[in-house]
């Protein structure tokens, strides 16, 4: 073998340079990438990094509570859970879904169809389940099925306070009643804050508060839940007994104008959505204007007394029990002959009231009625309050003025009527009414003089005494003043219905120093009786006597003061 020297390797200069260029390019590439990440794309990457540990969490806020004047809870929010699903993530088998369906009391097919649409990322399986059910669902730990915390409104008193409080919608916003009217006060506002969480999801650092939560404020109503319950149950009983289409009761504090109770029939249960009917949720005492009937007479007569046209002893000739004005005839149910003004009120004479009213200038009569609150809303802040109808005086014909004096052709809500009676309990001042508890006394608006108010009060007391129209309104141990009303029902487009009536009674007690005003109205009582004095007055008496005792109002009459006598012959409705 010939030994050969190892070959001398020569690297071609081209290859060497090529390699150098490649290395340089690589270096430039790296430098470029570094520049890109560190400089140009810096913000994005940092944000991405932050989002791995920084989270925004919600800070809860609850809706305020509603309480009555003694602090008893009437409406309160309590957390409940809703069962939701992300269909894309749901991988449960049929038996697993069956278990879930049974827990939620749904059909299997229902759940299957809900989670079938894989394009949706969120569906409610069932909203607001009881806490026990929610716990069981959480224990199943099905992927894609999760709980969402919500709050639900509860009304412990149920139907008793239904119309005042109203209710909230599924999203916890007020939809009716006080819940709607004071939505801004009651509603809370969710807040949020930024935190740092560790790998296990525990919060380890509080970075900043983005929005502080605003807790809903509690509301204290003027309502007295004891009186409210009494008024509600008496109204319900009477409405059923008289087979009335509907009815309302309003109880006002005679000195402060606070609404102590307000109840309507028919009613609904705010805790059960299925009981919400259009007729049931109507707060008739506030939103419905009704033909007033004879309960207006005291105002017509008080205006005449205020102007000095008559005093309580002035004699009015009502014979022959009818009064012809143009083509219309105003009638009393019988010829009552010559009556004093006090007797006109006591026996509720249409002819007498009309004669008194015809001596008044229409402009003054309109102005005084208007200042007594007729034709203008009571401004409780309640949604949909009725204003009633008081036609402008330049539209009045002579006969209109006459019929209006006994409440025919003038409408108002029961609340307006009750408010108007504060004139007689407050030395002639009209008090503003309030659903919220008042902490200070209020200024009334002077409408009639103290002397007129006291004189009218005396006449109204005669209504429940022998010779009057409301023996059943008497209350043991207290002197009562009030006025009955029976009006033909006005049917839109058809005029006054012959045999459909609205029976009412408005009154106050104790007459010597009034504490409470109670106004009662029954619409279409159809079990035979329909006189205000027979249908509405007994409700008044029961509510009044119960409420006065609850409030420990000193008696101003001996306990055996109730006398029985026949209702003064008086169907006090004008024809």
């Amino acid at each position, binding site marked *: 073998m010939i030994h050969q020297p190892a070959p001398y390797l020569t690297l071609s200069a081209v290859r060497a340079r090529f390699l150098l260029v490649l290395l340089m390019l690589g270096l430039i590439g790296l430098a470029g990438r570094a520049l890109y990440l560190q400089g140009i794309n810096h913000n994005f990457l940092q944000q991405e990094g932050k989002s791995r540990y920084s989270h925004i969490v919600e800070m809860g806020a609850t809706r305020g509570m509603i309480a009555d004047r003694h602090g008893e809870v009437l409406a*309160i929010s309590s957390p409940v859970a809703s069962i939701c699903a992300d269909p894309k993530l749901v991988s449960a088998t049929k038996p697993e879904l069956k278990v879930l369906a049974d827990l939620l009391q749904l059909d299997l097919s229902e759940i299957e169809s809900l989670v079938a649409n894989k394009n949706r990322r969120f569906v409610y399986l069932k909203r607001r389940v009881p806490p026990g059910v929610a716990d069981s669902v959480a224990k199943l730990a099905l992927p894609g099925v999760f709980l969402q915390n919500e709050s639900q409104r509860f009304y412990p008193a149920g139907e008793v306070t239904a119309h005042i409080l109203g209710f909230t919608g599924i999203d916890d916003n007020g939809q009716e009643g006080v819940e709607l009217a004071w939505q801004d006060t009651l509603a809370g506002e969710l807040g949020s804050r930024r935190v740092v969480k560790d790998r296990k999801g525990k919060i380890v650092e509080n970075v900043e508060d983005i929005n502080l939560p605003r807790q809903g404020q509690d509301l204290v109503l003027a309502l007295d839940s004891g009186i409210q319950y009494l008024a509600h149950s008496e109204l319900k009983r009477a409405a059923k007994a008289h087979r009335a289409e509907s009815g309302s009761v309003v109880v006002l504090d005679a000195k402060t104008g606070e609404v102590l109770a307000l109840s309507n029939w028919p009613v609904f249960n705010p805790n059960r959505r299925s009981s919400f009917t259009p007729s049931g949720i109507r707060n008739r005492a506030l939103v419905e204007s009704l033909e007033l009937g004879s309960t207006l007479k005291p105002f017509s007569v008080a205006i005449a007394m205020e102007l000095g046209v008559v005093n309580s002893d002035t004699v009015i000739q009502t014979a022959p029990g009818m009064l012809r004005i143009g083509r219309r005839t105003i009638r009393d149910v019988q010829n009552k002959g010559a009556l004093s003004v006090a007797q006109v009120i006591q026996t509720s004479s249409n002819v007498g009231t009309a004669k008194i009213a015809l001596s008044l200038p229409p402009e003054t009569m309109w102005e005084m009625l208007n200042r007594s609150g007729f034709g203008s809303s009571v401004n409780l802040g309640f949604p949909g309050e009725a204003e009633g109808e008081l036609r402008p005086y330049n539209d009045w014909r002579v006969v209109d003025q006459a019929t209006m004096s006994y409440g025919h052709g003038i409408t108002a809500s029961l609340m307006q009527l009750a408010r108007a009676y504060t004139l007689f309990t407050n030395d002639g001042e009209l008090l503003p009414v309030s659903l919220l508890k008042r902490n200070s006394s209020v200024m009334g608006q002077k409408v009639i003089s103290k002397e007129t108010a006291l004189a009218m009060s005396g006449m109204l007391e005669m209504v429940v005494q022998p010779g009057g129209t409301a023996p059943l309104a008497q209350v*043991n141990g207290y002197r009562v003043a009030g006025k009955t009303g029976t009006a033909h029902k006005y049917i839109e487009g058809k005029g006054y219905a012959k045999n459909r009536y609205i029976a009412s009674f408005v009154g106050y007690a104790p007459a*010597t120093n009034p504490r409470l005003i109670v106004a009662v109205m029954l619409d279409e009582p159809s079990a035979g009786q329909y006189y205000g004095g027979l249908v509405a007055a007994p409700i008044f008496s029961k509510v009044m006597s119960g409420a006065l005792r609850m409030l420990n109002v000193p*008696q101003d009459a001996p306990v055996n003061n109730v006398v029985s006598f026949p209702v003064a012959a008086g169907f006090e409705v004008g024809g």
Partner: protein
Amino acid sequence: MTKLNGCLALILVFCALSVVLSQHEARKLITALENERVMASQLEVEWGKLQLEQSTLATHRHIEGIAREDLKMQMPAETRLHTVMPTYFVGLTNSKSALIP
């Protein structure tokens, strides 16, 4: 010079470790605070539930039902009720009508 540098380096390490330690402590405290917050909100929920329960049990309808049906109680007739006033004699002089003794 080296001595000083070594000294400073030691101090630096010590400071660095204390920062780590206090950061850890802070996080532990914040976790504890968060736990308390969760507890507070749970208690608030509980309080709400109890309030709800109390007011449900205290509804007049419920009480009336128990009084009338279970305990067979009834309202005395109105004529058998007397109002007793602490200011009896004051009332007597102010009121026109005689008060029931």
